[in-house]
């Protein structure tokens, strides 16, 4: 009985370690991006854009719309790349203009001096900014612990690929 118990304890311990490691690695990086694109008028434009985005590592799904003027990109779990800057580079290389993007992204919260909040994803740091400081999502972020894993949804303005104006935050 004692032998079985020790074995069970070892198995449980091993499973727990694996679970903790898995949890620590899970969901860091872009989850979904809705990137607005100006200038695409025709089928080959959309085809070229789709092809260029699908070449990036870590892409699960791409849907390009000419009428809405956007590309919706879903990402494979737990990849630090590509970044939003990579997505926008592909848009520019295709000959079009990237505008505002809506993002859903996970990472580690870093609280800096003067209460500046950063979302760290790999080597990339996104500056988190409030849409409205009284909003519940921003209040939750203010109270979150330094180093906690968070998922935020928000808008990234054109020309500033490292700033997120937060709409929602999950801790």
């Amino acid at each position, binding site marked *: 009985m004692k032998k079985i118990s020790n074995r069970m304890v070892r198995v449980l311990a091993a499973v727990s370690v694996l679970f903790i490691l898995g949890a620590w690695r899970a969901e860091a990086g872009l989850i979904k991006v809705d990137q607005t694109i100006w200038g695409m008028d025709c089928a080959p434009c959309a085809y070229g854009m789709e092809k260029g985005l699908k070449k990036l590592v870590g892409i699960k799904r791409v849907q390009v719309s000419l009428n809405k003027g956007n590309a919706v990109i879903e990402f494979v779990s737990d990849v630090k790349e590509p970044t939003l800057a990579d997505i926008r580079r592909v848009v520019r290389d295709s*000959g079009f203009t990237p505008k505002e993007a809506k993002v859903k992204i996970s990472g580690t919260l870093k609280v800096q001096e003067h209460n500046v909040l950063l979302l760290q994803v790999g080597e990339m740091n996104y500056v988190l900014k409030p849409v409205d400081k009284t909003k519940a999502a921003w209040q939750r972020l203010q109270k979150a612990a330094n180093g906690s894993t968070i998922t935020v949804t928000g808008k990234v303005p054109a020309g500033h690929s490292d700033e997120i104006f937060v709409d929602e935050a999950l801790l």
Partner: protein
Amino acid sequence: MRMWFIFFVLLILTTTQVRAEGHGPAFGLATPTLGKGQWSSDTTVMALGTKKDTSLMTREWVGHGITEDLQATLGFPLSATIDKLSSPPRTRFASMMGAFGDVEGSLLWRFHRQAPGVGSRFETTMILGGSVPTEDKRGGVRVGPSLNEAVVTGYASRTVYGWLGGGFQHYFERGDDRLGDLPYASVVLGWRPPAFRQDYPKPDWRIFGESLAEFPRKDRINGAMDPNSGGEKILVGPSLLGLYGQWGVEVGVLLPVYQRLNGIQPDEKYRIKIVFTWWF
């Protein structure tokens, strides 16, 4: 009968090769778009008829996006002209493709680009190219290399298109012969019918109304101006472009509405062009 049989064989052969430009008009100047690193292939079958004769030829045009605003192209005849005109008009046939029998390389620099909103852009492109002939003589004149420069500005959107451009092709001497310079200009208006404004990857069709003006100067043969060369002409006509994913097909016709040709040159009756394009 032989001519039409060969025409349809070529049509079938090029159709089976289609996998994925036709982005703009068939004859006029435009501002083609290729992303950085992208390639395109345009395979063309074209016919030009005069009051005396008809020619039929095939031509290939390959494009490569060096950057999103700089493109290199190479146009060349795919085969010896199937039926050649004994007295060919001085023309580029279609402004972007190069003249009959020439191998032409060009750089297209889109130096102005502006996206005012979803699905639309203004842009202006400068074209600089050079050609070498694949034939010794053209219409009795020894053919030398040429330089071609053009500029075109335009608007592309999900509903309407428009381009306005002009260019100048200068042939160099070969011995005492020289083909006359060719100033040219084009205006193109396009419309995407509402039924074809559905989203990617649904089929995308549009109609163009094209006009092309050419003002060829006189040739020089053995040092003397040839009185039976040069003139001016304006041609207009429709073209229809269909795109699906990475490939496209375009058909266009131009008919002369005005021509004044020097000497005893036969008037042009029509130009017809069919293009198969794919992007890869």
